[in-house]
């Protein structure tokens, strides 16, 4: 990696969260609207007003607490009823914890990406945008014409699988593994 330059102040994730927030207004999903609006606010604050605030995330994440917490979460979420108050409580508690663990030290000038890395980032971003546009398109068309049988979203397709115990447990394991990877990689 080259060792020059720095990142723009506002992350492109702000744009992504703001767009998701706008879509929730169209969907009429108040809960998701609050979540994405809060997420957009956290992202903006993290690189502007709270830019110099630090949290010892790396110290905590590199210890074994995350592994043990992940194991407890796996048992708690894989075998309890979905859409329950118990799950709601766990996720409400989890939100500030994962934000704190991802916060870390204040942003410093970072090494710039090489041309090869930039190309890879562009290709994967294009892939993710294509997936989001297809999902957004299905959601919008489903609401305007035909319903979700004619234009199913990913949620509508995946939800019946999660109604089965094996599907729910499998989702929880994959979802926790992804979160574990993000936190551990971010702490390195």
């Amino acid at each position, binding site marked *: 990696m080259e060792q020059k330059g720095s990142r723009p102040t506002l992350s492109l994730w702000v744009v992504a969260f703001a767009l998701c927030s706008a879509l929730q207004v169209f969907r009429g999903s108040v809960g998701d609207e609050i979540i994405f609006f809060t997420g957009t606010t956290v992202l903006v604050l993290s690189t502007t007003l709270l830019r110099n605030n630090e949290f010892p995330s790396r110290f905590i994440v590199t210890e074994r607490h995350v592994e043990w917490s992940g194991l407890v979460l796996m048992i708690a979420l894989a075998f309890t009823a979905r859409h329950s108050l118990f799950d709601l409580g766990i996720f409400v508690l989890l939100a500030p914890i994962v934000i704190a663990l991802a916060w870390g030290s204040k942003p410093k000038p970072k090494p710039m990406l090489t041309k*090869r890395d930039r190309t890879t980032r562009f290709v994967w971003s294009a892939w993710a945008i294509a997936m989001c546009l297809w999902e957004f398109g299905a959601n919008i068309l489903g609401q305007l014409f035909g319903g979700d049988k004619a234009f199913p979203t990913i949620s509508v397709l995946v939800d019946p699988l999660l109604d089965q115990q094996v599907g729910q447990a499998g989702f929880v394991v994959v979802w926790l593994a992804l979160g574990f990877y993000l936190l551990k990689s971010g702490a390195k």
Partner: protein
Amino acid sequence: MNTHALTVGGYLVILAIGFVLWFITRKNDGKHLTDLSSLLKHLLQFRGTRLGMVMFWWWLGWHFLVSVINRH
């Protein structure tokens, strides 16, 4: 072809492209593209990316385990 099959087909095509892309770059020996894992490790150094990815990850769990999927 009905719209249901077309919509599901679209998801499968995009997923397949993602799998092929991951598969051909996984050894990190290509001239033009690096592997996804190396790229993520680098991008996760940035606070904005880290927070964005972790919050989106949290929302995925919330969406499938807590929210009730609205059907219309």
